[in-house]
Structure formats: structure tokens, C-alpha cells
């Protein structure tokens, strides 16, 4: 027990948590934007996976930042594709999302084998690059807490720092700009912004594109920092956990950040705990985010339903 506590409250654990949370956080923010505009984006998983592969392959031939950018573009283009089929051709957003996931699952393996010349499992033969970490070892010089600060704050991925900025940016966008107001209006009651002359479909399209771009950053982090290189199915359900985090975070950027952090902690625990307690299986810990999401979903839906019922007489 003491061992557990010591592990959890150590600096290394904190660093691990930041690492696991970063891709989740980006995907969650992407899911949040899409959800607030009124479309449930089930394709976060596929978008991240395709971004992972794109970033890895591009990084073989170009610097790391070009690779990250290409991952973002891949995600954004998928968002645009979804917007085309959902908004213009009226296909159901869930079906379109699943099409993207199916495309991603097989398409990435296909592209991987072409890129590696036959290896369908991993990109280990490719010289893919990593996102640099931010070295803050100068912090050690700070009196008293220096070494602690350094072990906590130095060495994180540059994208992790970007994640924090992105949360602030998303919050600012949603609550301090007119476009954020338009987006939230479109998601909640499209007739109102439409009557006010807001181009509703354009707003929805851009939100899907942004959703894809954010998932893209998450994918880049996953394949260029958390792991170096691509492995098939490497997203392992993170895109769906992100949907859960959107829900758990009460559809607000700060809530999303906290929910993603919570799920990041569980992922980190799943890595750490089997070493300490091999009687708690890793798989069971991995189910925790999903179980928590289902419970949160039920709780939030129940509360919303009760609120409605207090006004109407219920009928079955």
C-alpha cells in the first residue's frame, strides 16, 4: 500500500500522467468542439490513428514540426470529408464517423505496409522522429524547491505545453469570441442563429475540421513522443475515451481538461500498477475509463431527465 502511494505521488508518475493525458486532451478538445456544434464525432479514433501514421511517415523525410503539421492536416482533411458527406449529402453523422474509423483501421495498415516495404505491424524499420521535449533543467538552480521543480516540469513534450495553451485557446474561442457564440448557438438551437443570419452549415463544417485538426495533434503526440513510431491499432480506443471525457467534463473546456487528466491517470495506473500489484490485472484498470464514462452518462442523463420531468407530467 505504501509502495502504491509512494509511486503515485512521485515525480515520475506525474510525468507519466502528463504524457498519457496529452493525446487524450487534444482528442477530447476536438470532440468537445464538434459536440458543442451539434455533431457527435465518433471518428476521433480514426482521425487520431490516421494522423499518427501520417506524422510518422512524414517525419522520416522532413523535420518533426512538418510531421506534426502533416498530422494536423490529415485530421483536418478527414473533418472536411465528414462535413462534405454529412452536411452536403445528408448522410448520418454516426455512419460517416464509422466509415472514417473503418477506413483508418485498414487504411493505416495498408499504407504502413507500403511505407515499410511489407511490415504490417509496426514502423520500426522506419527512421521516424520524435517531438522534442522541453528541457527546463535551469530550474534546478531555484533555491530549495529547484530539484523538485525540475523533476516535475522538465522533460515534457513540447506538445504537452501546447495542450495547456490549447485549452486556454479553446476556452477563449468558445466564450470570448463571436464565433464561439455562433458555434454554441448552432449546437443548442440552430433556428436562432439561422434567423440571425449566421451561416449554420459553414459553422458546422468548420467545427468538424477543427475537431479533426485537434485529434491530429493528439495523434502526432501519440506516435512521436508517447511511442516513437506507428503500431497498428495504436490508438486503442483513446478516441472513444475522449468522447467519454467530453461527457464527463460537462461539455466545457476546463471540465474536458480535468476529465482527460483523470483518464490519463488511469492509463498511467494501468502501466504502473501491474508491477506493484500483480493481482490487479492491467486490463481491468484499462476498463475503468469506460465504466466511469457509462456511469457519468447515466448520471448526467438522469439529472437532465429529472429536470424536464419536474415541469411536465411524465407519460410512457
Amino acid at each position, binding site marked *: 500500500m505504501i509502495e502504491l502511494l509512494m509511486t503515485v505521488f512521485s515525480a515520475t508518475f506525474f510525468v507519466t500522467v502528463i504524457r498519457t493525458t496529452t493525446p487524450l486532451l487534444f482528442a477530447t478538445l476536438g470532440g468537445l468542439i464538434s459536440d458543442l456544434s451539434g455533431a457527435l464525432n465518433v471518428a476521433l479514433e480514426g482521425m487520431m490513428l490516421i494522423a499518427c501514421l501520417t506524422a510518422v511517415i512524414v517525419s522520416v523525410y522532413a523535420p518533426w514540426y512538418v510531421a506534426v503539421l502533416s498530422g494536423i492536416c490529415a485530421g483536418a482533411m478527414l473533418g472536411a470529408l465528414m462535413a462534405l458527406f454529412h452536411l452536403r449529402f445528408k448522410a448520418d453523422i454516426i455512419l460517416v464517423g464509422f466509415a472514417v474509423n473503418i477506413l483508418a483501421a485498414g487504411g493505416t495498415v495498408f499504407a504502413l505496409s507500403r511505407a515499410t516495404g511489407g511490415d504490417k505491424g509496426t514502423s520500426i524499420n522506419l527512421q521516424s522522429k520524435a517531438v522534442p521535449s522541453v528541457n527546463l533543467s535551469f530550474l534546478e538552480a531555484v533555491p530549495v524547491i529547484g530539484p523538485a521543480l525540475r523533476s516535475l516540469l522538465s522533460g515534457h513534450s513540447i506538445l504537452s505545453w501546447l495542450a495547456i495553451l490549447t485549452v486556454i485557446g479553446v476556452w477563449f474561442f468558445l466564450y*470570448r*469570441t*463571436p464565433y*464561439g*457564440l*455562433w458555434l*454554441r*448557438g448552432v449546437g*443548442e*438551437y440552430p*433556428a*436562432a*442563429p*439561422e*434567423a*440571425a*443570419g*449566421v451561416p449554420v452549415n459553414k459553422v458546422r463544417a468548420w467545427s468538424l475540421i477543427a475537431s479533426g485538426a485537434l485529434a491530429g495533434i493528439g495523434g502526432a503526440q501519440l506516435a512521436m513522443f508517447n511511442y516513437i513510431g506507428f503500431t497498428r491499432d495504436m490508438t486503442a480506443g483513446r478516441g472513444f475515451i475522449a468522447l467519454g471525457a467530453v461527457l464527463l467534463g460537462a461539455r466545457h473546456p476546463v471540465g474536458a481538461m480535468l476529465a482527460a487528466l483523470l483518464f490519463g491517470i488511469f492509463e498511467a495506473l494501468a502501466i504502473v500498477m501491474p508491477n506493484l500489484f500483480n493481482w490487479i490485472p492491467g486490463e481491468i484498470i484499462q476498463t475503468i475509463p469506460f465504466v466511469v464514462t457509462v456511469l457519468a452518462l447515466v448520471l448526467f442523463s438522469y439529472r437532465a431527465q429529472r429536470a424536464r420531468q419536474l*415541469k*411536465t*407530467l411524465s*407519460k*410512457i
Partner: protein
Amino acid sequence: MAPLLEAISIGKTYPGGTVANDGVNLSVEAGEVHAVVGENGAGKSTLMKILFGIEQPDRGELRLDGRPVAFANPREAIDHGIGMVFQHFSLVPSFSVYENVVLGSEPRDGIRFDRAKAIEAVRALSEKFRLSVDPLPPVGQLPVGQQQRVEILKALYRDARILILDEPTAVLAPQEVEELFVAIRALVAQGRTVIFIAHKLPEVLEISDRITVMRGGRTVGSVGTKQVTEDSLATMMVGREIALRVDRAAARGGVTCEIKALRIANDRGGTIAEDLSLNVHAGEILGLVGVEGNGQAELLEAVAGLRGIAEGAVHLDGTSLEPLSVLQRRELGVASIPEDRLARGLATGATIAENLVATRLSDRRFVRNGLLDLKAVKAHAAALIERFSIRAGGPGFAVGTLSGGNMQKVVVARELAEQPKLLLVNQPTRGVDLGATQFIWKSLTAARDGGAAVLLSSADLSELLALSDRLVVFYRGKIVAAFHNTDDLTPETLGTYMLGLDTQEPETMRAALQ
């Protein structure tokens, strides 16, 4: 001086043949409150939609400040200074008042949404036009009267010179109506012009300067408010000849349905209708008269079981209906023809046979041990198609392929396949061609003659007068008059009660309610 806004010989025919406007003229002077009155179906909404750019006229022209204009969409109308407040608001419930007002044209500070400026602007407008509302709370929490003010502020924020208010008092309580009138007077004092669409004549007479009356898609006339009396106005609005009449009931039986002191509430606990008490006898048609939205449709829903009852009782042959489910009420002999056949009365993707049997799924003739007897279902459908002259390819066709009149016949056929005890009918011939209308009327009287008690609600006064044996008038959620349908009962008389101009002696009313 040229009028501010003119509509000249406007004509509009909808695809499908409905002539909504036929040579309509409207002339609005600057700075006046101009009321447009007329019954449902008179063409008022179509004219307003044309003025606001939602629809385009087939004939005629619009003139603003003496110059011809045409609006291809609402944005253009807004740019020309016309603002419209609809009956159904377009407000985002969780957004605050000021966010709703400025949505789409937000004041900015660089990339930021300048909230302080928005709140300031809304406060200023609110004071200037006596539309007091706190800019900060979320709109969803406000009472309806204040929500309406937010809608008006939306139009004013975009510098509307002409404000069109569509039935603004329909959703307001009396005190709120007074506050609205204060606001309208303030608007006019500030140089704006208000076009006011309404039904309730006392209010129209109180607030407006001039009145244009529409009927049957045409303009009947335009008068100054000071020169007109209530009665002449009512006559202008409702006078028409009755083209068709059916035979009155031979005799009526005992009381089938008893409604006592019924109160129906809306989602927020506010009252839609109250103190409703009436009896319906077997073998008679009781017509519910009134402008739409005064409680008739809600009463029918409450009796059918689709809406809850806040207070009071409904009995069918002595059995209380209140605790029973929709299915249980149907089993007792309640049948209902709903107002909107596409939304509620039919499953357009399913076949005619399936729609016809949908309310009879506990009947042993069609379902035994959970299995459908398809032959019986098909035969039943074929027999009903024959009996009700439904023009369709066959029982296996999807209902969505039928014309409006035939779709309605499917609903009628289903509900009248077996003689019901209590038949609830709402807008039976809305959007239905003449031939099907005649047939449906015959079916309704046949049901009545078979012993059914029929509650009929319709926006078409001539239909009510043609079919009903007795009539009950609704105004503002209460019953204000009741009549036996004799030859000397005229539409004008009903009109005065419908529009709130008169109230009946309680004694007379009680007698007719039995």
C-alpha cells in the same frame, strides 16, 4: 405623403394549388400602429412572410418609401429595416438576453466579443423603448412575456424601422399585454412603425391606429380605428355563406362523456385552459369554436390521453379516464383524429394496411399469440379502402405515396373502422381536397348516427357550423359561450364570442352545455 410600406395586389399561390393571397393590398403609414386582422386561413401569415422575405409573391409588388422593393430572403428585409417577431421565438435557451439579442452582429474588440458593449447597447435599447428586461439572465428562465421583449429587442438592435408582430398577445397574460402596449407606444413615439397581426378585437381596437381586414386571401377593407365599431369589424372578418350543410342529428342519447372543471397546464405549470366543464351526448357532434390556441386542441389531447390533466375529471360512461393509458382509453371506445396527420396520425413509411391496424394490435382478429394474421390484416385494409373510397394502389403501398386527402381518409378509416363511443376530431379536413372533405364529413355524421359522441375542433368556422349539433366557444382558455346549432345562429354571432367581444349569460351557457 406616400405611405411608408405598401403591398399592391399581392398574389401568392402555393404549389398544390392553395391560393393564399389573391390581390391583397396593404398600406402602412409611417409612425402608426397598423393592425391586420382576419381568421385563420385568411392569408395574413402569407402576407407577412412576403413582407419579411421568407416567401416571394407570384404577382404584385411591394413598395418601401414609395420605391419598389423585393426581398429574396429575410436578410434583405432586415437590411431594409423590417424586423419580424414570430409567434414561435428563435432564442437559444442557455444564452443570456444580451447574447441572444446581438447574436450574428456582435460588437467586437479585435477578435474578442465585447460583452460590456453588448450589455450596454441592450440596456440602452431596453430603456429607450420601455422594454424592460434584465440583459443578464439566460433566456430559457424568463417568462414568455419577457422572452417576447428579447425578440423585439433583436429587431430593434438591427435598426428595424418597421416591426411586424405576429399574434404577439397570443402567449401573454393580461398584465403582460398592457406592458407590451406601453412598449409599442414608446416605439411609435420614437418614430418606428408597427404592424400588428391579431385576432383579439378588444386589443386591436385599443392599440391600433388603422385596421386592415383580410378574408379568404383578399383584403376586405381598411379602416381607421376610430371610425369602426366592434360589430362591424366582426362582420367584416367572419361573414361568409355556408356552402354545405349536413343533416342535424335525429335525436341524441344519454351523456357519454362528462368533463368537469378541467384544467390543463403547460410545461412550466402555467395554465393553458381551465374551468372546462361540458357534457357530450351519444349521437351528437359538439363543435369547439375558437381561434386556434385557445385550448381546444389541448382539451382533445387531454381526453385522448396524450396530455396530462392538472385538475378536474373526465368520465366516459361513468368511468374515469384520468388514470388510464392511451391504449386503455382506446379499448373503452375512444377514437381520435389528430390535428397533424403527418406528425402524429400516420407512419408514412409503413404500408396502408399496417397503418390501418396499428391501433388494433390487441384485437384477436388480427393478432393471436403474438403472431399477425396477415390475411386478416390485408382483408381488413382492403375492406376499409373500399368503404372509405381511398384512392391507392393497394393495401401494400406506403402511406407516404398518397395525396393529402387520401392520407386523411386512412386516418379516418382507421378510427371509424369500428363504431367508437367517443370520437375526438381535430382539423379533419385541413389541407384536404373538396371531394375527400365531403366524404369525411359523411363519415363523421355516420359515426354520430351510429351513436358516437363527437368532439370536433376546427379552424374552419363553416365546417363547424355545418357539422355541429351544439357549439361551445373558447376564448383565452375558458369556455365563454355555448349554443344549440339552430338556423338563426350566424357566424357573426360566434365571431363576437370568439374574439372576446361579448360574454354569454351564465344561465344560457349552462343550459346549452348540458
